[in-house]
C-alpha cells in the first residue's frame, strides 16, 4: 500500500514538473520610458496568457545608459533571451558574436511577406545576414505649428528648403520668436538631411556616397548645403540651440518659440500628450535645390543572443510581438512606424492628419528617397561624436565649412567606404 502511494506521488510530481515546466524569457529594451514599458508589458501579458508556463521578464534600463548596459551584459554573457537592438547598436553586437543568426527564422516566417520595402535589407545590414527582426522604423519628417505660422500670414508647410529658410528668417525677431528648431547635441541625421538635400544623386544604400561612388563631402554641393545648414542656426534659431537635444527641441516646438521642427515619428506620442489635437501637423520634408530630399531610414528590432537557452521560444515571442494587432498597438502608442505593410492599410491612424507627412513621402519614393546609413562600418559609433564636435566648432566659428568638409571626407576615406 505504502509503496503504491509513494510511487503515485512520485509520478505525480514528475508529471507535473514536465507539464508545468516553466520557461522564463529575459528581455531588454533600449528605448525605455515608463509609458513604453507599460505598452510592452501589455503585449507581454497577452503573450503569457496565450502561452501558459512562459513568463517574460522585461528589463528597462534608463535610456541614456541602455546601450552601454546591453554591450556590457552581452559581453559578460548575462542571461538574456531577447535584446532590442537599435540600428546603431547592430554592428557592434554582431562583431561581438553575441547575436544569433536569424535567417532560418525569417525565411520561414509568414509575416515576412508583408514587410515594408527595405525592412529585410535593414535586417541584413551586417554581413548580408539577418541578425534582428525589425520592430519599428523611424523616418524623419517635418513638424510645424499652423497656429503660429498663421500669425504671420503663412499658410501650410514649406515645401522646399529655400522656402523653409525664407519663412524661418521672416518670422525670426531675435527676441521671442525664432523659426527653426536646431539640434545641437548629437546632430547626425539632422545635418546630413539638410546637406544631402542639395544633391540629387545620392546612393540609396549609403547616405555619404553619390551614385557614382564619390564621397559626398568632396562635392561642391556639400559646401552649399553645409553653409545653408549653418545659416539656419545663425539666422533662425536661438543661440542656445547649440546645446539642444531632443528634450529642448520638443519644448521649444511646444512653446511655440520655434514652429518648424524635423524629427522622428516617436515625437508624435509626446506631442499628442503635450499639445491638443490639431495644434501641430506633419508635412513631407522640404526638398532641396535638386528637387529631392533623402530621409534617413532608422530602425530598431529584436535580436536573440547567441548564448540564449530559449531561442525558439524567444522567436515565438518576437513573432507574436510583430503580429499586426500588437505591432499596430505598439507603434501607435509609442509613435514609431510599423514594419508590417498591412497595418498602414488597416489602421485608420495611419491615414490621419498626424501621419500626413509620412504618407506623402512614402507615396513618392522618387522625390523622397529613403536612404540607408553605413551603420555596418566599425567607425559609425565614433562618427556621430566626431560630427557633433565639428558642428560645435563650426557654429562657434572656430572652423570653416571648407575645413569641416575636408575632415569629414578624410574620416570616411580612412574608414574605407
Amino acid at each position, binding site marked *: 500500500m505504502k509503496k503504491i502511494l509513494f510511487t503515485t506521488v512520485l509520478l505525480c510530481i514528475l508529471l507535473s514538473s514536465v507539464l508545468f515546466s516553466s520557461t522564463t524569457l529575459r528581455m531588454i529594451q533600449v528605448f525605455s520610458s515608463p509609458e513604453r514599458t507599460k505598452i510592452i508589458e501589455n503585449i507581454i501579458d497577452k503573450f503569457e496568457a496565450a502561452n501558459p508556463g512562459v513568463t517574460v521578464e522585461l528589463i528597462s534600463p*534608463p535610456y541614456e545608459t541602455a546601450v552601454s548596459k546591453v554591450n556590457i551584459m552581452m559581453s559578460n554573457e548575462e542571461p538574456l533571451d531577447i535584446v532590442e537592438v537599435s540600428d546603431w547598436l547592430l554592428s557592434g553586437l554582431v562583431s561581438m558574436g553575441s547575436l544569433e543568426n536569424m535567417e532560418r527564422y525569417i525565411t520561414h516566417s509568414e509575416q515576412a511577406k508583408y514587410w515594408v520595402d527595405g525592412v529585410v535589407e535593414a535586417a541584413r545590414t551586417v554581413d548580408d545576414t539577418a541578425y534582428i527582426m525589425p520592430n519599428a522604423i523611424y523616418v524623419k519628417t517635418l513638424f510645424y505649428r499652423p497656429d503660429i505660422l498663421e500669425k504671420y500670414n503663412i499658410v501650410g508647410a514649406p515645401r522646399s528648403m529655400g522656402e523653409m529658410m525664407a519663412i524661418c528668417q521672416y518670422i525670426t525677431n531675435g527676441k521671442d520668436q525664432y523659426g527653426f528648431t536646431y539640434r545641437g547635441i548629437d546632430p547626425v541625421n539632422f545635418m546630413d538631411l539638410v546637406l544631402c538635400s542639395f544633391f540629387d544623386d545620392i546612393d540609396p544604400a549609403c547616405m555619404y556616397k553619390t551614385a557614382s561612388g564619390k564621397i559626398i563631402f568632396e562635392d561642391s554641393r556639400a559646401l552649399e548645403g553645409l553653409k545653408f545648414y549653418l545659416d539656419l542656426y545663425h539666422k533662425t534659431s536661438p543661440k542656445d540651440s547649440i546645446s539642444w537635444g531632443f528634450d529642448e527641441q520638443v519644448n521649444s516646438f511646444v512653446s511655440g518659440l520655434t514652429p518648424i521642427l524635423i524629427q522622428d515619428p516617436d515625437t508624435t506620442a509626446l506631442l499628442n500628450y503635450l499639445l491638443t489635437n490639431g495644434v501641430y501637423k506633419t508635412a513631407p520634408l522640404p526638398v532641396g535645390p535638386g528637387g529631392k530630399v533623402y530621409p534617413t531610414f532608422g530602425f530598431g528590432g529584436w535580436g536573440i543572443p547567441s548564448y540564449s537557452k530559449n531561442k525558439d521560444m524567444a522567436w515565438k515571442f518576437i513573432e507574436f510581438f510583430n503580429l499586426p494587432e500588437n505591432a499596430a498597438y505598439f507603434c501607435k502608442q509609442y509613435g514609431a512606424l510599423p514594419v508590417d505593410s498591412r497595418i498602414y492599410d488597416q489602421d485608420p491612424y495611419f491615414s490621419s492628419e498626424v501621419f500626413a507627412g509620412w504618407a506623402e513621402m512614402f507615396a513618392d519614393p522618387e522625390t523622397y528617397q529613403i536612404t540607408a546609413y553605413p551603420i555596418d562600418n566599425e567607425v559609425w559609433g565614433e562618427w556621430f561624436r566626431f560630427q557633433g564636435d565639428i558642428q560645435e566648432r563650426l557654429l562657434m566659428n572656430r572652423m570653416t565649412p571648407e575645413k569641416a568638409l575636408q575632415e569629414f571626407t578624410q574620416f570616411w576615406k580612412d574608414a574605407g567606404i
Partner: protein
Amino acid sequence: MSVRVKKAISKTLKGLALGLYLAFALAPILWIFITSIKPPEDIYTFPIKYWTQKPSFEAYRYLFGFANFSRYFRNSLFVTFFASIVSTFFALFSGYALSRFPFKGKGILMIFLFFTQMIPAYLLMIPQFQMFSSLKLTNNLFGIIIIYIGLGATFSTIMAKGFFDRIPVSMEEAALIDGCNRVGVLFRITVPLLLPGLAAIFSFSFVNNWNELFTAALFLDSDSKMTVPVALYSFISKAGIQWNVLGAGIIVALVPTMIVFFFAQKYIVAGLTQGAVKE
C-alpha cells in the same frame, strides 16, 4: 559711531548675507517643487510661468501609481540602511585599530587609504561587473550592498580614525586597568563618546549610498529591484524628460536624506568638535 549702532549694522548685514545665501541655496529646489505641481503644458512656456493656475499633485500620484515608486523607495531604503550600517561598523573597527595601535607602516597604510580615494568610480565599474557576473551576483540587491560598502569604506575609516584620535586614551586606559578587555572598553566607554562621530559617518554614508546612480543602473535589471536614483533616471527617455514627474521624484527622494540629516546634524556639529578643545 556708537557701539550700539555698529552692532545693529553688523547684525543687519549678517542677516542680509544669511538671507541671500538661503535664497541662493533654496532657489533650485523651489523651482523643482513648483514644476512638480504644474500641469505638463505649463512647464515649458514662453514667457516662463512662475506659478500655475492649476496646481495639482497629479505628478505625485503618477509617481506612486503608474510608476510604482514606493517599490523603488523600499529597495533604496533597504540597500542604503544596510550598507551604511555595515559600513559604519567596519569603519568603527578599522578606525579604532588605526588610531589606537601603534605599528610600523601605519603611515603607509594611511597613504594607501588616501590613494584609494583617488580612484575614479567609473574605472572600477567594468571590472566589478565582470567579477560579479561570474559570481552570478548581478541583479542582486546584496551585490549592490557589497559594492556600496566598498565604495564608502575608505572615507568612513579615515573619518573614524579622526574621531578616535580626539578621544583621550586615558579614559580607556583607566577602564583597562580596572579589568575590562579591549572590546568591552571599546563599546562601553569609547563608543558612547563617539556616538556623534558615528552619526556623522552614518549620515555621510547614507547620502552617498542613497544617491548612487551608475553602479545601480548597471548592476540591477529587474524592475522589482530598482533603486530610487535609477528610477528617476528612467524618466529621461528618448522621448524627452517628464519634468513634473521627475521633479516630484526628486522632492520625494530628498525626504529620507533630509530626515537623516536633521537628526544627525546636531551630532555632526557637536561631534566634530569633540576633543578639539584639547588640542
